[in-house]
């Protein structure tokens, strides 16, 4: 059966250790100053009632991706198994996909000039391994798998928990599911003051 890869993140378990950021950089040789996954951090409330909130963000591998729609050379592709990838030999580096992505999850490689993005560690998942960020998460907050497989962890995650997605109103049908998402933190954008 056709696969449909998706990722689930339980924010109640996330401890904000930034391991996913680092392990992704090591695994995919991501250039300096750009990230394919990062943890947004926020501070809610005032002392004594105060809590830190975390939100790891990565490419949502949308069902209806804007980046694939706008790529003028079809370098951005939605694979059969749901992974959105960039063909590094075809990309001309026009950055239109970066401008159009509602999640801002693409980066341009300063050395080669082409656009790169999270590909769910394609070299790992093709050999039935988990993506590096999922494997490295010490709190086991991240779940990866095939949504069409009813015995997979991600299927159970999506069914059992109250999940939501980021920017659902874009109509892109993102495939990164969050449990316990804090909309106040998701709404905060830009750099901290």
């Amino acid at each position, binding site marked *: 059966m056709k696969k449909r890869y998706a990722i689930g993140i339980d924010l109640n378990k996330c401890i904000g250790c930034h391991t996913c950021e680092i392990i992704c950089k090591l695994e995919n040789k991501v250039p300096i100053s*750009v*990230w394919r996954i*990062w*943890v*947004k*951090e*926020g*501070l*809610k*409330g*005032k002392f004594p009632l105060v809590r*830190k909130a975390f939100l790891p*963000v990565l490419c949502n591998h949308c069902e209806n991706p*804007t980046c694939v*729609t*706008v*790529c*003028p*050379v*079809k*370098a951005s592709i939605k694979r059969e198994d749901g992974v959105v990838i960039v063909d590094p030999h*075809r*990309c*001309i*580096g*026009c*950055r*239109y996909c*970066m*401008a*159009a*992505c*509602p*999640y*801002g*999850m693409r*980066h*341009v*490689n300063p050395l*080669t*000039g*082409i*656009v790169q993005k999270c590909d769910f560690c394609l070299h790992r998942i093709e050999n039935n391994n988990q993506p590096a960020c999922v494997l490295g998460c010490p709190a086991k907050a991240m779940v990866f798998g095939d949504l069409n497989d009813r015995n997979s962890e991600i299927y159970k995650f999506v069914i059992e928990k109250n999940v939501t997605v980021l920017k659902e109103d*874009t109509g892109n049908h993102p495939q990164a599911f969050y449990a316990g998402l804090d909309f*106040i*933190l998701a*709404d*905060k*954008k*830009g*750099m*901290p*003051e």
Partner: protein
Amino acid sequence: MDTMLTYNVPMQETFGVWIAVYFYLTGLSAGSFILSTLRYVFGFEQFKPLAKPGVVLAALLLILAPLALLIHAGQPMRAWHLFVFINPSSPLSWGSFLLTIYPIISIIYGYFMFKENKKWAKILGIIGIPSAIAVHGYTGFVLSVAKARALWATPIMPLLFLVSAIISGIAMMMIVNVIQGYFFSKERKINTDLLFTLGKMLIWIIVFDLFLVFCDVIAHYTGHKEGMEVVKHMFTGTFGFLFLFAEVFVGKIVPLVVFSVPRWRRTSVYVIMAVIIMIGIFIMRYNVVVGGEHIPIV
């Protein structure tokens, strides 16, 4: 709520200044092409002096404009991919063909014009007007299709771009008219009638442009959450200065007032206003492109 962001990652620049320059150059090209067709297609004899410089500038600027794209692209040597791997859903893919066809049409049109072959010049002009509108209108679609940014993703964007293109084209033609009269005509006399006619044309087009900007701002202000953020961003800070003062006040309202007062009908005043309008339209492109992506989305 007492919530603050304590860690986030800065966004990379996507469309920078070079894309704004590119939009500006295609706008100037489309505007001057449309003005040059006023005589050969629509038969307004008073615009005869503008026809030839108009078409030469239209072709030249449109040959220059893609250079800005090549500077912007990360892999400029792969530009031929645009003509081999075509994605019909991408405005940039339409643009790669428009940017090839339009200069060719305008060069053929210019050839017949310089040969004084009025019949073929008219036919080529009729083909050229839609292609001039398309070559600049598609740049509006480039932005309005990118749904990530609320400032760009409005249906009004292609129209807004076309109207401002015609404004900048007319302003450039005013300067061209003065240079032509002062340096290249036999009597060394500036065709002031034409200059003031162009000024009169500009009044109504600027009014229409201000109306479009007003519609855009009102729709954003009363619209969804991201639209409100856009208005806040464009009305305060650096972009507040660039948008409200430089683009709208100095670039549009001041020329509008000056052109409507008959007592200020002097060549020097009109030339200064034309330069101001051209700078104002460039600031408008900068505000839209760079200002649009300056609003954080993550």
